[in-house]
């Protein structure tokens, strides 16, 4: 008789490695790590089939603190390593952890191609708008005027907007969350994992040492409700303490207006309903910036393709193998040969 003992349900603790976590006290990375431990346990993920691949940066130390498989690679190249891994082992659940410098500066090209190819990876970009590990230089997401050791008079170049970039790269799953909002992150992690193809999640992360409170304009308790719009598919895009604020499409300018219900004749019917399959809308939402607009959070875009990259590759290989396995002796004797006796 075969007795199958159902595996004991794993808890958040089972996903934490035995390594001492070495981020600065108060760093936003702790909260993300904790949320991930719990999410994976809730999802019933198996540690041996889960792999975290990262680049270089404070954020990229993440894999060391996971009791799963982990690969801390080189600066900017995690999407490329993860692509190779996924090609070799499509059945694995592969997560990429990267920072704003890692993903958008040195690794911008690899991120682009992983998204464009639609490799089934869950890519988490910890955006602290700074180079944490190298002690606080400005990053490609730093806002103009960012003072840092390398920009003592303030940075002068325009920042990249991570979700907009991902959309332009052809990503089919784009979401945004905040380090300390564990409940919301949990939803994003699950959705990202379920999505077949590349999933891109930007996580707003506070670097308490080099860029503290840079997101305060929408993360501080007293402003959060009025400055955060948590979008949900099929629901009107309302926010504010009294949920009387919303987004309305301005057909004249083909852009979004932040409006207040009851003011200037705005009614509930004017408020746009979120459609996560709408790429044009996703573009507009991703680009909204405080203080004129709320920060848009949640699943901004989700429009899966029929097949992920590695699945399409595997399908071709299956097709080739259908004619029988390769025979090297036969291959080398194909074409023009001659025999000497």
């Amino acid at each position, binding site marked *: 008789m075969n007795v199958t003992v159902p595996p004991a349900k794993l808890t958040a603790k089972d996903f934490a490695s035995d390594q001492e976590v070495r981020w600065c006290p108060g760093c936003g990375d702790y909260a993300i790590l904790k949320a991930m431990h719990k999410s994976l346990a809730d999802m019933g993920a198996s540690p041996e089939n889960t792999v975290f691949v990262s680049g270089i940066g404070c954020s990229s130390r993440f894999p060391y603190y996971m009791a799963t498989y*982990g690969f801390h690679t080189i600066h900017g190249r995690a999407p490329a390593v993860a692509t190779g891994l996924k090609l070799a082992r499509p059945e694995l659940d592969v997560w990429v952890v990267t920072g704003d410098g890692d993903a958008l500066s040195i690794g911008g090209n690899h991120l682009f191609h992983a998204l464009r190819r639609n490799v089934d990876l869950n890519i988490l970009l910890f955006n602290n708008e700074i180079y944490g590990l190298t002690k606080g230089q400005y990053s490609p997401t730093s806002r103009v005027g960012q003072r840092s050791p390398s920009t003592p008079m303030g940075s002068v170049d325009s920042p990249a907007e991570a979700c907009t970039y991902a959309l332009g790269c052809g990503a089919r799953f784009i979401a945004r969350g905040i380090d300390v909002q564990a409940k919301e992150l949990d939803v994003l992690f699950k959705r990202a994992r379920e999505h077949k193809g590349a999933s891109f999640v930007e996580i707003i992360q506070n670097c308490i040492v080099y860029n503290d409170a840079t997101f305060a304009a929408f993360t501080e308790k007293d402003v959060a409700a009025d400055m955060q719009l948590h979008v949900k598919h099929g629901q009107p895009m309302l926010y504010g303490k009294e949920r009387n604020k919303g987004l309305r499409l301005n057909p004249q300018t083909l852009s979004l207006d932040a409006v207040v219900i009851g003011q200037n004749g705005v009614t509930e019917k004017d408020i746009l309903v979120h459609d996560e399959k709408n790429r044009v809308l996703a573009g507009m939402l991703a680009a909204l910036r405080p203080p004129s607009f709320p920060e848009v959070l949640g699943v901004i875009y989700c429009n899966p393709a029929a097949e992920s990259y590695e699945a399409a590759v595997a399908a071709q290989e299956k097709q080739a193998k259908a004619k029988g396995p390769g025979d090297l002796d036969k291959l080398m004797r194909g074409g023009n040969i001659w025999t000497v006796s």
Partner: protein
Amino acid sequence: MNIQTDAGPRGPSATASKSDLDSIVVRFAGDSGDGVQLLGSQFSQETALAGNSLATFPDYPAEIRAPTGTTYGVSAFQINFGSRPIKTAGDQPDVLVALNPAALIVNYKNLRKGGLVILDSGAFKEKDMKRAGFAVDPRLDGTLKEFRLLEIDISAQALEVAKPFGVSQKEALRTKNIWTLGLVSWMYDRELVSTTEYITRKFGGDDPVGMANIAALKAGHAYGETHELSGDVAPVSMPSVKSEPGTYRLVSGAESLAWGLAAGAQLASLEMVLASYPITPSSPILHILARLKQFGITTFQAEDEIAACCAAIGASYGGKLGVTASSGPGIALKIEAIGLAISTELPLVIVDTQRGGPSTGLPTKTEQSDLFIAVWGRNGDAPIPVIASRSPGDCFEVAIEAVRLATKYMTPVMLLSDGYIANAAEPWLIPSMADFKPFPVTFRTDPEGFHPFLRDPHTLARVWAKPGTPGLMHRIGGIEKDYNSGNISYDPSNHQKMTDTRTAKISNIANDIPEQDVALGETKGKLAVVGWGSTFGPINRAVANMREKGLDVSHIHIRHIWPLPRNLGQLLKSYEKVLVAEMNNGQMLTLLKSQYLVDAKGLLKVSGQPLKIEEVSSAIRSQLGAA
């Protein structure tokens, strides 16, 4: 037709000044659009099927379609074939087929005195000659007086033949390479079967262009026969070479290298992921493997060479054989990632098909100047095995050896080929897979006492534990690891120990590779000529020639460049003089000096062209003070 015989003392063919007819060098040259490479490779195929030994040298420009008639648009294909073992594509052509004035001006100076020039007079119009740089008609002003000249209006012949098939003027003219092939096939008594089959395969049996080409082939052949080209260009029959019994084919270095990788993966019981970014002359490896999916081979055209190397590492991490292939500029981009594979001790095969450098250098020309980057070109103390193939056919075995070392020692291995080897073809005794001893890898599955940097006490290789294995979850990365646990460690003495261990692991490989042999000659004596890679042919032939003349010289050819064979130092010291011949500015020379403190001298050449036999011979003579 007009045969000038000023310089030709006697016929037949082009070997007038040679005492025997045991080999002939023919060089085909024309515009990039003339189909010279096809002409050359089909002639090689026919020649191989006729049982001759041969070596080829495709020499083509970097421009895909340079403006017609320009010197920089000249594409050439050289073949040396004979009834004795042929080792190089030949120093000097005996016959030059020039399909336009530019092809003539670029190539005639290297033709042997008394050699035969066959040219397409239809392409020698006033403006064509001007464009090529002939101020006056070279056929009239004595430019070619040292050679014999056979002029045929090949263009007109080809047009005439193709006309009835209703193909366009342009397509009709494009049959001139095949017409020429027909003529040359007649000259050397070649069968037209394989070319006919090739054309039928390419165009289909009833395609007008295909039929025009077959007609052109026959017409060129018939032209030779009916015009009774006699005397100077009478047909020559080259007896077949005596070779080992077995089944043969022509193989290029790229083919045998790709097949060798596939064979290596099979012997290791692994599936393979080749990740690569297109670059000349490496790309054919990607193209060939992309068609071998049924062998469990996945190919990935990455966004750049960094990504290619990283993806290969990701595949190895996942438990497959990661392979990446490139050339100089691409190899430079992979360096940081190779360091990651060294640090995480993952198997990886890096194929470097070398070309002229630095920077973009000479993309289509050959060189051996990546030895330093292969052996020493990384940040940190980061040794890896480096091996080099000596000929197109040799790539097969060398690729298997690269896979064996990478998987047995959990290390990246650099395999050096070069543009000459990759493109050149030679007859190849086809190996049988049954003759190779398998070396299946074992993956760690036992959680008992596991950590990712547990080592085999003998090889020092770490365990290979792939994701998906229950109970073996672990983290690896490029930060230094604790010797006893694999966890991150910044401890000073641990870093010393890990660096020493990584170094010892690679040095130990010297005990797992053959001792250095002497390719030709004695294990001691007056002079050893040392080479590696594609210089094998010219060095070997030159040493053979000089030994026939009684000189005390031997040839040593190194396959394992790092670590070097354990007896090499002793061996080198048993000669009074050591001459290192290589196509770079002294890289192997420096390596050998630094390792063995030998007072070696160099024969160094970086012209983008293979070494010539005569260059090696004269260096040997001068080393030995012989006339």
